[in-house]
């Protein structure tokens, strides 16, 4: 015989203001099987929890119903309190009479009636609850970090320093990501490569980090604690362990003016065998087979091979697949810049001196195509007037994206500042919509660009850029003075919006994590779980989640790392027991459940007799992946799947309680 206790919470006036809590309590007392009914101002408070515990003990309760706030809030609180009195925590049910009743209704009488109904339903459900044990999953204490930009490197270093092995996979020939392309960083103007290269070197030399550059994640399966990863190590054509990075090979390559450098954003050329930049980590060249004469012209050219001292160039090297098992993953794939071809009016691609912000970074950089001297791409002259246009693609729902790219206000201010420092007597103009400079030292930095460095800020958008007698005429609006302005510039820099790295949506699908409509990975909770993805064991870091600057990327890398170290501090991972359960006796192996499962949690299981003869195949639920969403239950024709804690008889009993 059930002995149920019902506890009705007032939540101050949150519930009691709209619901007659005493009436709910009185109605509860009338239900057969309810041996105790109580209402209290704050059930979640210590005295509230204590009375819950006392009554469980005194009345020897077999189940508890709380008519209170959403189970997202305090289900855990009350389950823990009940568990302390020896009750299986899953014998605690919540009737949500706050979010679903008091906060959304006004009529007290009808709201009370609804609250009574919800409470009755839960009483009938709890009567049919069965004890559920949480599932424990063993953990492989090794982590995979995808993407070797600043966020990924930070995550890898923090995990490795915590004593855990890390595999760091980077698609490009070198780690360093976008940050290593930058010149100086706001708001302190420390040189990006000066603060980045030590981290790159440390990641390369760390005993706990295994680095795979020029490699891509091909396939991922499994679940938290036990991910099986296939990494494709692309054929580099250079034997890494023998290479000294001396440079004889790229100096000998005849393809020296033919390929645009990706690292210098098309502003210079590179050879077919190349390192993207002098401080590359590892300092081992990659042979780009799509342009190499050896591969294009049937093996005739081997000048790099001839020049190589240690003879470490091997044209026969093939792509290699490496398999690893890891317990947790960090996805930090970074960002790309938007294609600005939809802004025909700005003439990017048409006029050589209309460039992107990232290209300007390369012009400023000492390792860039002009060795840090600002020169126009068209004629190599140093510009005297530069117009910077912010929000090109960002905050433009018509042509670009509605979101703010966050870093452009600051890097534009930095660009204008560095331009003033490098070209004395020059003048810059900045077109902006709003200036967003909210972090530490940022507002002062932008002010400095305006006041000390003399940049003229114009609030408004640019309507058109065209060439006239060697000048770029920039037409725009100054909305503060209400005037149309026209500026004759030598160069124009577009602060292009940021978008997720190409292919990150495919990676998200492979990982089984969710992403938003732009392709940025989505956090499990935007405020309270910002480092976790929607899938257990997979964590997020850096710009792959959305626009953010270097400090924030570093923080997010560290956050992901600390989550993983926390996870790995135990030997097993505990999963809530409310997951799908297959009745193997009735399963007909149609596998509709497998088709509807969004988490790849269902696999085929063979049942064999003692002699090893196959008796039948049934669906099998992987407890590490199942979230208990219930999609498979609906899809199952033979009614062979139930979610524990939400069994059919419980649901029917709830519905019947409503009808009575």
């Amino acid at each position, binding site marked *: 015989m059930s002995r149920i206790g019902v506890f009705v919470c007032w939540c101050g006036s949150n519930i009691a203001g709209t619901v007659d809590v005493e009436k709910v309590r009185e109605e509860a007392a009338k239900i057969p099987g309810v041996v105790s009914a109580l209402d209290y101002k704050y059930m979640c408070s210590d005295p509230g929890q204590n009375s819950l515990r006392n009554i469980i003990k005194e009345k020897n309760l077999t189940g508890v119903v709380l008519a209170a706030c959403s189970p997202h809030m305090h289900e855990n609180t009350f389950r823990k309190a009940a568990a302390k009195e020896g009750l299986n925590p899953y014998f605690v049910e919540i009737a949500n009479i706050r979010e679903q009743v008091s906060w959304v209704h006004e009529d007290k009488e009808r709201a009370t009636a609804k609250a009574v109904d919800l409470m009755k339903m839960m009483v009938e459900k709890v009567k049919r609850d069965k004890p559920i044990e949480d599932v424990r999953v063993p953990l492989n204490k090794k982590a995979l970090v995808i993407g070797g930009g600043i966020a990924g490197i930070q995550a890898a270093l923090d995990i490795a320093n915590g004593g855990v092995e890390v595999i760091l996979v980077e698609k490009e020939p070198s780690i360093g990501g976008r940050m290593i392309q930058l010149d100086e960083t706001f708001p302190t103007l420390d040189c990006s490569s000066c603060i980045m290269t030590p981290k790159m070197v440390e990641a390369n030399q760390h005993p706990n980090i295994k680095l795979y550059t020029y490699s891509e994640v091909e396939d991922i399966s499994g679940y938290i604690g036990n991910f099986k990863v296939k990494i494709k190590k692309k054929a580099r054509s250079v034997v890494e362990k023998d290479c000294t990075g001396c440079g004889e090979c790229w100096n000998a390559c005849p393809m020296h003016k033919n390929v645009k450098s990706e690292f210098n954003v098309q502003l210079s050329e590179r050879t077919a065998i190349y390192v993207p930049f002098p401080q590359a980590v590892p300092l081992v060249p990659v042979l780009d087979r799509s342009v190499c004469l050896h591969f294009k012209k049937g093996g005739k050219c081997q000048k790099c091979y001839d020049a190589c001292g240690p003879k470490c160039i091997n044209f026969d090297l093939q792509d290699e697949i490496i398999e690893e098992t890891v317990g947790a993953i960090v996805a930090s794939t970074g960002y790309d810049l938007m294609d600005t071809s939809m802004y025909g009016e700005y003439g990017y691609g048409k006029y050589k001196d209309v460039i992107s912000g990232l290209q300007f970074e390369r012009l400023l950089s000492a390792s860039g195509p002009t060795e840090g001297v600002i020169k126009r791409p068209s004629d190599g002259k140093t510009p005297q007037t530069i117009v910077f246009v912010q929000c090109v693609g960002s905050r433009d729902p*018509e042509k670009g994206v509605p979101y703010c790219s966050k870093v452009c206000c600051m890097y534009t201010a930095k660009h204008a500042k560095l331009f003033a420092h490098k070209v004395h007597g020059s003048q810059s103009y900045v077109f902006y919509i709003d200036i967003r400079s909210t972090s530490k030292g940022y507002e002062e930095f932008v002010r400095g660009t305006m006041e000390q460095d003399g940049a003229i800020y114009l609030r408004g958008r640019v309507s058109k850029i065209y060439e006239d007698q060697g000048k770029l005429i920039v037409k725009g609006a100054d909305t503060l003075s209400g005037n149309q302005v026209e500026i004759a510039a030598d160069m124009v820099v577009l602060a292009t919006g940021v978008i997720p790295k190409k292919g990150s949506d495919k990676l998200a699908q492979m990982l089984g994590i969710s992403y938003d409509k732009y392709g940025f990975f989505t956090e499990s909770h935007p405020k309270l779980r910002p480092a976790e993805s929607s899938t257990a064991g997979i964590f997020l870091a850096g710009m792959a989640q959305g626009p953010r600057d270097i400090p924030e990327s570093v923080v997010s890398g560290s956050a992901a790392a600390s989550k993983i170290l926390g996870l790995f501090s135990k030997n097993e991972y505990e999963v809530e027991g409310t997951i799908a359960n297959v009745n193997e006796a009735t399963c007909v192996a149609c596998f509709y459940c497998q088709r509807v499962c969004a988490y790849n949690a269902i696999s085929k299981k063979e049942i064999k007799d003692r002699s090893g003869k196959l008796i039948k195949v049934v669906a099998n639920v992987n407890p590490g992946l199942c979230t208990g969403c219930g999609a498979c239950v609906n899809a199952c024709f033979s009614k062979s799947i139930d979610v524990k804690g939400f069994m059919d008889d419980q649901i029917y009993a709830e519905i019947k309680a409503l009808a009575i």
Partner: protein
Amino acid sequence: MKLAYYPGCSLKGTSFEYEVSLLKILEAMNIEIKEIPDWNCCGASAAHSINHNLAIALPARNLAIAEKDGCESVLAPCAACSNRLKNADYELKNDDILKKKITDSLEMPYDSKMSINNMLEFLIGTVGKDKIKSMVKKPLSGLKVASYYGCLLVRPPKVMQFDDPENPVTMDELVALTGAEPVDYSFKTECCGAINSLSKPDVVMALTGNVLYDIKKHGADLVVVACPLCHSNLDVRQREIERKYDEKLGLPVLFITELLGLSFGIDPKDLAIDGHMVAADKVLKKIDQNI
């Protein structure tokens, strides 16, 4: 496929040259079009600033008649007309409540399956480049031609769904087919001042002047357009602009249909080229000397 033809008021009046030359080149290419019976005003720039429903209902009626007539596609050579027809079609496609209201008041159904083409879409899409190229008897080589698009053909991009709204090239492609050299310049889609021609002629002269002087600076012999209002501003106001800014322009402004007609070897008189304010004599002479 039956092709409906919606001339609108301009082609029957101030821009008769447009219609004359259009019909002439279609005849030469053996393409039949059918004028929408009992067509009415498209609403142009007046209706939508006064009454939204009326601005949709007017073009919708024309589309509904064309549909009833068994046509799947309509050609509206005037940029303002095609703009209004496309706008109405767009709104009806995306707003069921509005659609019901409009079709009820028109007492006619409309299925929203009509493909609406401006002049350039029609020439490039329906007629096709190959066909046009095969018609060119008198290549206009040596002639430098600036294509002026104005605003209505490309804006708003979401509704027009035509070419690059900031750097359109369709008309330049047509120009290239005639053997003439397309001239790249900066103000292809800059505003000509449009209907302000009547109320604020000074504004129009400044704006149209910007366009014309930029074209002149880039070395064009003539301008082609696909919009009666553009034509009127660039052609009719040209003398006044020259006087106001004290700088000669002398740029004949032809409709794209006229330029195609010339390359097809049709007599300029039959294309009504003598109907413009800025004489095209010099250009015609240049073409004749080519042969």
